[in-house]
């Protein structure tokens, strides 16, 4: 039997609401099939299953909100015999008592403690109210539990939680369905700035060659398939990461883990406010046309719902592109537990010296925010250099 559990779709997620099952008991499922849709604080996400088998029982009803790690369904894996079992629709009847059974001494077995964060109910309430990620708080209460004092220390400047606190006239508290997303973003960003020693690097890149190449490429394509300037940037990041793989990965449990595949998270701002950074999976294996199609699909689904769980959890690095918003430079905050974030600003015409000659060129400011626990400045410089080199040789993209 395999247990299908509520996945963690980001370091800031504590619980999710099941919106619908895409399977019913008896259905055959294969690894990576979407079997459920779950609402998180950020979006509705399609959840994939990671076992081959037959759906034995569904344990959570649509509409239920359950903590991360809750068993939601039982999948009978192929090797197991087809034993008759009660289905979800039938009440589970207790097994008939064994004849004259002597009562067994009660054995208290708590579930594995390493997954569950010990925090007092009051501390949890405070943390939820202030958007604090309990995973990032060091507990000093009984048995190392997180107490209210630990939460208060985590954000000494946070406003008091009492409802009676007067709201200054004219200030409206940000309410509504997206304040949950705001809190999730707040938790992740506060954790990042608290835990990650960010190092920042910046370089200016002459985009003339890439833009010329892009214009020529786009002439060959029908309008709906034209490639946006951000796509060669994504492609160049992917190629540069192959030269400096340290930036592609995670810092987990005090250790740097370099990821094998490259899944570039792309920051998408949502029309109703807030943002989300789903991954373009296996970026390294995709050419510019595939990347463009993938990006278009990702943005559409991010804004309409329908992102998949793997896209939400597997990003190995993030790109934020604020060029279309008219900003020249962005120094981003790393999305934990990733170790790097690449920022692109607006391409603007600038005076530019090359070979002793002054000209006007379209210039892009590219930045890199890196976790200095994982990588040093030298490697970061090599990355930006590689990125620049790729963009000067667009035919290699």
């Amino acid at each position, binding site marked *: 039997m395999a247990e299908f559990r509520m996945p963690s779709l980001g370091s800031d997620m504590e619980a999710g609401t099941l919106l619908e099952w895409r399977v019913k008991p008896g259905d055959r499922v294969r690894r990576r099939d979407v079997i459920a849709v779950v609402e998180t604080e950020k979006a509705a996400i399609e959840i994939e299953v990671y076992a081959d088998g037959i759906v034995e029982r569904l344990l959570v009803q649509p509409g239920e909100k359950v903590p991360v790690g809750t068993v939601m369904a039982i999948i009978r894996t192929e090797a197991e015999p087809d034993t008759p079992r009660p289905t979800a629709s039938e009440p589970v009847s207790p097994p008939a008592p064994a004849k004259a059974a002597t009562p067994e001494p009660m054995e208290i077995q708590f579930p594995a403690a390493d997954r569950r964060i010990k925090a*007092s*109910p*009051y501390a949890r*309430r405070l943390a939820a109210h202030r958007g604090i990620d309990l995973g990032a708080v060091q*507990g*000093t*209460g*009984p*048995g*190392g539990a997180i107490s209210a004092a630990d939460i208060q220390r985590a954000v000494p400047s946070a406003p008091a939680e009492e409802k009676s606190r007067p709201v200054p006239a004219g200030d409206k508290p940000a309410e509504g369905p997206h304040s949950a997303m705001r809190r999730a973003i707040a938790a992740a960003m506060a954790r990042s700035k608290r835990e990650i020693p960010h190092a920042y690097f910046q370089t200016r890149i002459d985009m003339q060659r890439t833009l010329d190449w892009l214009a020529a490429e786009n002439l060959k394509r029908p309008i709906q398939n034209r490639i946006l300037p951000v796509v060669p940037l994504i492609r160049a990041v992917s190629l540069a990461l192959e030269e400096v793989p340290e930036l592609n990965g995670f810092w987990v449990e005090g250790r740097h883990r370099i990821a094998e595949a490259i899944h570039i998270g792309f920051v998408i701002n949502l029309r109703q406010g807030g943002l989300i950074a789903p991954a373009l999976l296996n970026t390294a294996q995709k050419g510019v046309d595939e990347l463009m199609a993938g990006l278009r699909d990702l943005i559409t689904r991010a804004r309409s719902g329908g992102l998949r769980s793997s896209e939400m959890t597997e990003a190995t690095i993030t790109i934020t592109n604020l060029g279309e918003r008219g900003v020249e430079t962005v120094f981003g905050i790393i999305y934990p537990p990733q170790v790097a974030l690449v920022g692109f600003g607006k391409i603007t015409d600038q005076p530019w010296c090359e070979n002793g000659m002054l000209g006007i060129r379209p210039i892009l400011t590219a930045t890199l925010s890196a976790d200095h626990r994982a990588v040093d400045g030298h490697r970061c410089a090599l990355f930006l250099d590689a990125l620049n080199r790729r963009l000067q040789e667009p035919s290699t993209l």
Partner: protein
Amino acid sequence: MIDGEQALRTITYREAVREALREALQKDERVFLMGEDVGRYGGCFAVSKGLLEAFGPERIRDTPLSESGFVGAGIGAALGGMRPIVEVMTVNFSLLCADQIINNAAVYLYMSGGQFNVPLVIRLATGGGRQLAAQHSRSLEGWYAHIPGIKILSPATVEDARGMLWTALQDPDPVLIFENSGLYNMEATLGADAGPVDIHQARVRRAGRDISIITYSASLYKALEAAETLAKEGIEAEVIDLRTLRPLDERTFLESVARTHRALIVDEGWRSGGISAEIASRIMEGAFYELDAPVARLCSQEAPMPYAKHMEDAVLPQAAGIVDLVRHMVNAHG
């Protein structure tokens, strides 16, 4: 005229109960006192001393050593329109009349389809700490608080000793008043006009912000002593005197826990299945999301009460134990 200051006087808990008895006997001719040695001997704890001379043998009645008999007579008198105060010398002997209390007094109203109230007041001495050994040192008030149909009062202060009796007599149903025998000699200042008090509300005896110590009866003073010690370390404990164990005034202690986010229950009764367990459950049901630490309990060791002083002290909750526990709860680091 008497001004406020002159009206104040210092009396003992024992004298306060006696005053309450005297007042009740004077104000209501249906009231009479009945029990072992309450008349000529003046009461085992000298509470009723002088009352026989003042009110005569009709109203201050010595009984045979038969708890089941005279508590049953009290129930009968109450059914017959009297307002009896029955003294069961100590709670230890109340086990002999438990059938009358639990199986008769507590259920007649129900069994008679609402026809017969039993306006009976039973006074019992309770508690340990006086080197009277296992059979004479029990604290069973929490155990009686399990029973629907009776009210359980636990006056800890001289003011409550003075004021709860009359209010209990006004109740149409059986009320048990548990007087901790260790408190009889305690003195306090009361106004000359001290009189009836309510019997449905707990009291905050000391305000604090860091922890709620919930207790009753003689343990109140251990909690207050502990709170003074803790205050010197910067820990402000709120001390709540439950006063009435049935029905429990949970609102007062739940509101307190919502302020302090921690709760310790101090109970001279035993821990397993005790009133402390009930209070902890009410906190879990009513204030779970306010808790910043697990609810803690300090109760008597689950053993027969020893005779030797140092062992008896070790079995009962003490101020030092409260201080240790609160320190750990408030300052825990890992």
